[in-house]
């Protein structure tokens, strides 16, 4: 298992280098420079433009800039935002817990609803339930996040008055961040009602963000289960007189787990991507919204650092998924 883990970890290094390259060069392909982007209608006189480019180190050839960037990254310095002048790392550390909390809850919804729905659809293949689940999954998968979110806000917040419109917690609550995870911080605080407020603010964005992963997980679970349920050993288990739930949970689901776990791992990337739109819509102070604004402002350090850190988070999750394969299926472990 240790060798398996080391092999997987070594494969992360070239990916990480790839991310630094993409993060650095892709944003520079977008026309316009950060100084011009800050200038507005008035523009900026060439001498001051030159000076600011020099101050930000943007007057150097690209390869030199990249070399300096990588060297700083290796020392743990991701630079400062060109707009706020705060360090990228501190801004990320402030905002990432919000994204993580939202993504975690979205994934929880996707798993709690998606897995049983997929299993039920597979077990009751071609039934009304199966068609219903698959129809709903297809609809969910095709739903534009922004539109879906607005619909939910109009229905649940404006019309039915059941949930808050946006934000992370009611304005009445003044919570000092301890962990950054508001559900935990509100529990740690003495403010009565703060936890309920934070939870109620989380409901709609988590549903919106969890919709696509839910649909994907339900469809993948159904398909993987269908494949396994047709295997001889399942028939044998049934013939031996094992109860249905044991056949499904212990024999079928365990063997269907590899593709399902793969999809769940991949959905983490989807969650971070989806968080960009969900956070913008629900005024959720996470890294998605931060990066979108940085694109508009050509805030290179934020874009580079943010992409790198999110990339690292996705890689870490995928690494865990890879390691989980090894635990779920010893053949993979031994093959490595």
């Amino acid at each position, binding site marked *: 298992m240790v060798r398996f883990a080391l092999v997987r970890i070594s494969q992360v290094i070239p990916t990480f280098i790839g991310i630094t390259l993409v993060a650095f060069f892709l944003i520079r392909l977008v*026309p316009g420079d950060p100084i011009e982007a*800050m*200038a507005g209608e*008035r523009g900026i006189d060439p001498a*001051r433009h030159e000076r600011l480019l020099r101050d930000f180190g943007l007057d150097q050839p690209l390869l030199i800039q990249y070399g300096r960037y990588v060297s700083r990254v290796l020392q743990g310095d991701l630079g400062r935002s060109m707009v706020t002048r705060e360090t990228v790392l501190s*801004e990320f550390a402030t905002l990432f817990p919000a994204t993580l909390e939202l993504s975690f809850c979205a994934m929880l919804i996707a798993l709690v609803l998606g897995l049983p729905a997929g299993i039920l659809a597979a077990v009751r293949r071609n039934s009304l339930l199966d068609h219903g689940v698959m129809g709903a999954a297809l609809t969910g998968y095709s739903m534009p996040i922004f539109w879906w979110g607005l619909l939910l806000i109009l229905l649940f917040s404006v019309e039915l008055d059941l949930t808050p419109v946006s934000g992370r917690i009611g304005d009445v609550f003044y919570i000092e961040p301890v962990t950054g995870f508001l559900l935990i911080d509100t529990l740690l605080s003495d403010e009565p009602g703060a936890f309920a407020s934070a939870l109620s603010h989380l409901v709609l964005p988590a549903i919106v963000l969890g919709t696509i992963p839910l649909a994907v997980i339900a469809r993948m679970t159904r398909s993987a289960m269908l494949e396994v349920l047709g295997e001889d050993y399942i028939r044998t288990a049934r013939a031996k007189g094992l109860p249905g739930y044991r056949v499904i949970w212990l024999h079928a689901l365990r063997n269907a787990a590899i593709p399902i776990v793969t999809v769940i791992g991949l959905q983490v990337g989807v969650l971070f991507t989806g968080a960009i739109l969900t956070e913008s819509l629900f005024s959720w*102070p996470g890294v998605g919204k931060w990066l979108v604004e940085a694109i508009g402002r050509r805030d290179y350090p934020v874009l580079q650092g943010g992409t790198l850190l999110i990339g690292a988070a996705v890689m870490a999750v995928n690494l865990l998924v890879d390691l989980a394969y090894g635990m779920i299926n010893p053949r993979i472990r031994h093959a490595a």
Partner: protein
Amino acid sequence: MREFPTSAAFCIAALLTSAPLSAKTLVYCSEGSPENFYPAVNTTGTSFDAGSQIYDRIVDFERGGTKVVPGLAERWDISVDGTVYTFHLRGGVKWQSNRLFKPTRDFNADDILFSIERQWKESHPYFNVTSSNHSYFNDMGMPALLKSLEKVDEATVRITLNHPEAPFLSDLAMEYAGIQSKEYADAMMKAGTPEKIDQEPIGTGPFYLVQYQKDATIRYRAFAEHWAGKAKIDDLIFAITPDAEVRWAKLQKGECQIMPYPNPADLDTMRKNPNVQILEQPGLNVGYLAYNMTKKPFDDVRVRKALNMAINKKAIIDAVYLSTGVAAKNPIPPTMWSYNDDIKDDPFDPAAAKNLLAEAGYPDGFSTDLWAMPVQRPYNPNARRIAELMQADLAKIGVKAEIKSFEWGEYRKRLQDGEHQMGQFGWTGDNGDPDNFLNSLLGCAAAKTGGGNIAKFCYQPFEELVAKAKTVSDQAERTALYRKAQVVFKEQAPWFTIAHAVQLVPVRKEVIDFKPSPFARHTF
């Protein structure tokens, strides 16, 4: 003594539907996060809104208007030649405090010197802190204008200019000139964390900062010791809500009481909502199409006039601005002093336009480009759509216009470099002074490559008028000069003036006496 802007600002009769907020809490659904809390390096209205609750300036704009009124200086004297300004500072003005710093003295002349020199002198220890890009200080021409800055005594500051500059007081009322505490700056420098004064600010303003959570909320509390008395609201919360639809949903639900920048498509619904009223303020802005006068055929005034008559302005305003714009006939907005309402706009008359074009030697028209911004701007909601309407109108007199667009930064740069033949652009006023439009956008100095005069209009009779108006301090005399300048502008037609966008601020009915600012600022 002037009336304190927040004293009459709000009486919140009853707030919010379900949330148990204090009756004196106001929630403002702001559109974004500030860059930081140092207005001198900020360039966006969003950041200015966040900072202006905290800081005062030497002089200020009257609430809801552009008139300069006393701020931290209770009065001032101007020398006969208009180059020496002596400011007499208000006494007993208290500084706010925060977890990092407790002030030991009141506001005085040292704070004025610190705040200006920090932006002016590269050798100043705070010049590079947070950013050396003091945009507005440079853009308003301060480095070339200021000759000296002296502390006469604790309560008196003298500023000497290199030449008379009538808009100088207006320039000092802008947000970039917010006054910071020298004592706080010294303490933070000593502690090795100079940037803290811009991140955890203190000021002398009506509210102090309680908490800022990036992209979430900014919390302020009324400063009880404010020199003009405590504000009538206790707590002010900026709920950062970038999406206009969501801001509207929050306003409907009572989660906030004021929202800026509504989506024009929602205005009809908003007007029907019994809990909401829409406050209107003619914006200090202008959207226009500039003819590049250094390029043929736009060097001929007849061609420019012909095109002005060929474009249906009313159709553009009806189709694109909806109810959020008024037709522009002058380069300055109607709310600005010296606006010349006697001027008649060029009529929409395609037949006369065609005749004039023939007279200019283009009976069959000509081909040209027509640039359209790729982004929505405060003075122009949809430049592409406007360009299409213009293109159709111009085709009727034989002018074939090809619509061009670039990335926004690139667009502005190329336009200012004069690469276009016809280009849409616009302006939002900084300081309420006509010079800020007529000289900045149409003066000869701005007509050089890279300058803001994108028509490259440099016409001596006009130039003489605006140059003279800049140096005289008598407002009646300045008004007469600017009125004449507008007549010359209309005769020469360097622009097709499109519209002045109206600023709309939906507020809940419980909010009383909020006045939108002509600068599109939101101060409470």
